[in-house]
């Protein structure tokens, strides 16, 4: 009894960290730039295929791919920002949503052409091994993926909190005009922020690919998960995203141990609706309605 409880607790926390990095970039771009990047999960899916291709073609370990994905996807993100986001940033929110929605459909259909709709898994040397900690057997991929996730979350937290650039980004999130008046180059920082958001999506994709099976058309489910976490945790704060991710992970594993699998999703979605009714913009984040 105690063992299964501990197992659920560990497993939930491990999954929660992976969920948290899936939502990290979405939370930051939403909170700081006010852009709802619906193409976020498409980049997560690309990250998974990135790791798969590197492993199958060049034999590169996914752990290494996790770090390679960061600069590679940063370039993707900066490019997407330059080509698409800059043009719709000052337009209505609807227009930006439509453009990014188009990007999501584009990435998904191109990926389907490249990799078909078959479900894939990444088989690294440690994929099927297990680790026994305090009498509990845990899959080693889960531990590796969540360690990587924690590392990334820590790096983002440190960056946003202690570096001058991070502070400037937060200032921009609080008041764009005021930040500009203080001499902050908002255009450049926005590109950096969007790039970092996509970089974290790519890295999250690698971690997710290590733990879960994936296919181009299932990316949209990750958008649902990421959005769920952003709504629960509020936007723009790394630590809140982690807390919300852990909450969802734990809720999922606990629910799975008592309910049939299908109902777990239903429970989460119903929970989401309740949160939306009770707290308009997340449990942790403050309501940000202008009037």
């Amino acid at each position, binding site marked *: 009894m105690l063992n299964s409880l501990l197992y659920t607790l560990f497993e939930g926390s491990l999954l929660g960290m992976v969920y948290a990095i899936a939502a990290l970039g979405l939370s930051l771009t939403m909170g700081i730039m006010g852009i709802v990047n619906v193409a976020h999960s498409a980049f997560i899916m690309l990250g998974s295929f990135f790791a798969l291709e590197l492993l199958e073609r060049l034999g590169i370990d996914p752990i290494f791919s996790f770090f390679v994905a960061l600069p590679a996807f940063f370039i993707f993100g900066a490019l997407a920002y330059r080509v698409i986001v800059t043009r719709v940033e000052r337009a209505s929110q609807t227009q930006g949503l439509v453009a990014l929605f188009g990007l999501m459909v584009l990435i998904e259909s191109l990926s389907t052409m490249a990799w078909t709709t078959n479900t894939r898994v990444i088989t690294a040397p440690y994929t099927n091994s297990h680790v026994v900690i305090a009498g509990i057997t845990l899959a080693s991929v889960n531990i590796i993926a969540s360690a990587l996730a924690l590392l990334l979350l820590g790096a983002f937290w440190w960056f946003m909190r202690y570096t001058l650039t991070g502070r400037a980004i937060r200032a921009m999130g609080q008041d764009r005009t005021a930040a500009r008046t203080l001499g902050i180059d908002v255009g450049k920082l926005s590109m950096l922020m969007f790039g970092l958001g996509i970089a974290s999506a790519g890295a999250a994709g690698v971690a997710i690919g290590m733990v879960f099976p994936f296919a181009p058309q299932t990316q949209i489910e990750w958008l649902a998960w990421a959005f769920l976490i952003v709504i629960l945790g509020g936007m723009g704060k790394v630590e809140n995203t982690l807390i919300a991710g852990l909450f969802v992970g734990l809720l999922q594993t606990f629910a799975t141990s008592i309910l049939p699998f299908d109902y777990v999703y239903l429970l989460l979605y119903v929970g989401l609706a*309740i949160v939306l009714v009770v707290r308009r913009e997340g449990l942790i984040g403050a309501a940000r309605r202008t009037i």
Partner: protein
Amino acid sequence: MPSLFFLSPAKRSRQRDVWAVVAIGLALVVYGAISEDLGLVNTLGTVFMYVVLTQAWNILGGYGGYLNFGMVTYFGVGAYTTALFYQYFQVSPFLTTPLAGVAAAIFGILIGIPTLRLRGAYFAVVTMIITFAVQIAVLAFPFTQGAMGVYLSPLSLDPRAVEQLFYFVFFGLAVVTTILVYGIEHSNFGWALVAIREDEDAAEIIGVRTTEIKWIANALAAFLTGIAGGIYAERVLYIEPTSTFALDISLNVVLMAVIGGAASWKGPLIGAPLVLLVAQFLRVTITSEANRAIFSVIVILIALYVPAGVIGMIEEIRRRRALRRAKLAALAGSE
């Protein structure tokens, strides 16, 4: 003083558009009655169905600026309503279709109450998420028969009559929906929605009951979509959760509305046939993923450069032409 010059040409072109649409409609009625090409009649039936869905989306999405990425939820609820009525009570879907609309509208209200208090982007993503939840629920509940799906019995008519029946049913629905959206566009309700899209806080200050108006618009869209779904069930004769709640349908609706031009009753009339007929044509030459990719590029370009879609482009050209004509007239007058 350019506005003085525009006033009458704009009104005239609006009337001209209405007559053009009526003429095309009459031509389609004649075509449906005499055509022997069942393939094309079938495709046009699907076009009309999508016109209904896209017009319904247009009410809240186009005028109100609240994008619904999960129209298929209402569609699927409608389809399952008529199918289950047939399954358990043997009532023809044609009779229970209004109930399908009502069921979808109730659903729309349930979804709308929590989500429409939020600003646009939340609504967009949450509607998409809800599609999954409903799909999972339909898979899990015993009375919807899960992945097995529900069968309906075919109509006892010859194939041509069946195709013609659905052609005219969807055509009629498309006409009714288009008239309704035309009415909304030129009513206080429509202007309130536009005010919400342009600046929701300002709209609230000048006394627009923003939340209630969004709820009504969403419920109305759900009702219309549910009716289309109810008839769809009888058309395909077999529905199951994966294909009935397919995200593809939601995506198509948004693509069609954006390409045709949201916030105009004419947009869906252009968008739905354009996307479907071009897709049909491309499918012969290249795969369906490729045409999805092409349409998504078009959507990105439209969002970046012509937010009002094809119809907006046409209107822009007209406006420029009218301006040029007015300038020429002014020049001629001064000489």
